[in-house]
């Protein structure tokens, strides 16, 4: 119904560029506690790479890479990781989100356990932000249909 312009240059450039954007997004998440960055920023970069795929190709192409079911599961998964780490700390005898208690189950001292806990919740935040960006973009761009190209 909606005709979209197949642009060879645009599609080729995006196909080359998107893996690098995604690796950079993963770097921003994983390196968030040593350099500027973190879950929110890295998640947005990962989500933007999918949005670029939607813009350069169409929504069906993006949905082949990540279906809306997987996307919605990812929305919750990040939050579950975040609150799950908090609950693990609670079970291990600390207060909620007191990561130093993770040192009891991980082979590190309590100070390094805090660093690992921070990395864990950054990953959770990144997953949620990425999935939410994709979900909102798909809903807004296709009037909730998720079927045609961009309108």
């Amino acid at each position, binding site marked *: 119904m909606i005709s979209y312009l197949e642009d060879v240059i645009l599609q080729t450039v995006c196909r080359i560029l998107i893996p690098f954007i995604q690796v950079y997004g993963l770097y921003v998440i994983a390196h968030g*506690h*040593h350099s500027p960055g*973190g879950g929110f920023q890295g998640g947005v970069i990962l989500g933007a790479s999918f949005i670029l795929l939607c813009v350069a190709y169409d929504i069906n192409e993006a949905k082949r890479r990540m279906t809306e079911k997987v996307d*919605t599961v990812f929305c919750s998964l990040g939050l579950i990781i*975040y609150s799950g780490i908090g609950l693990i700390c609670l079970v291990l005898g600390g207060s909620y989100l007191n990561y130093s208690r993770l040192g009891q189950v991980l082979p590190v001292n309590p100070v390094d356990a*805090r*660093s690992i806990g921070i990395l864990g919740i950054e990953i959770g935040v990144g997953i949620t932000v990425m999935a939410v960006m994709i979900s909102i973009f798909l809903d807004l761009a296709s009037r909730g249909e998720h079927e045609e190209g961009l309108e």
Partner: protein
Amino acid sequence: MKLLALFAVCATGVLLIYGTVDMPDWGDPHSPASVHVSPRYIEKAMEETAVPNIVTAVLADYRGYDTLGETVVIFTAAMACILLMRRRRK
């Protein structure tokens, strides 16, 4: 009515600008925000969390509840968008 609205807007603006007169200077090292918890974070963040990036240490550790709430806000935004806009395929 429009004049009344204009008056209300101007009065609020004047009050807000008047409120900024009492604010500490920008970047003042002796302002209350800079003498209370900031030095504590700057001195202890590295040895308490082993994270060189103090911003991340404050966001994810000292203020972990806050970041959890932010994530919940984003999650809620997605759920609201899905509930309002997504339509089932016929």
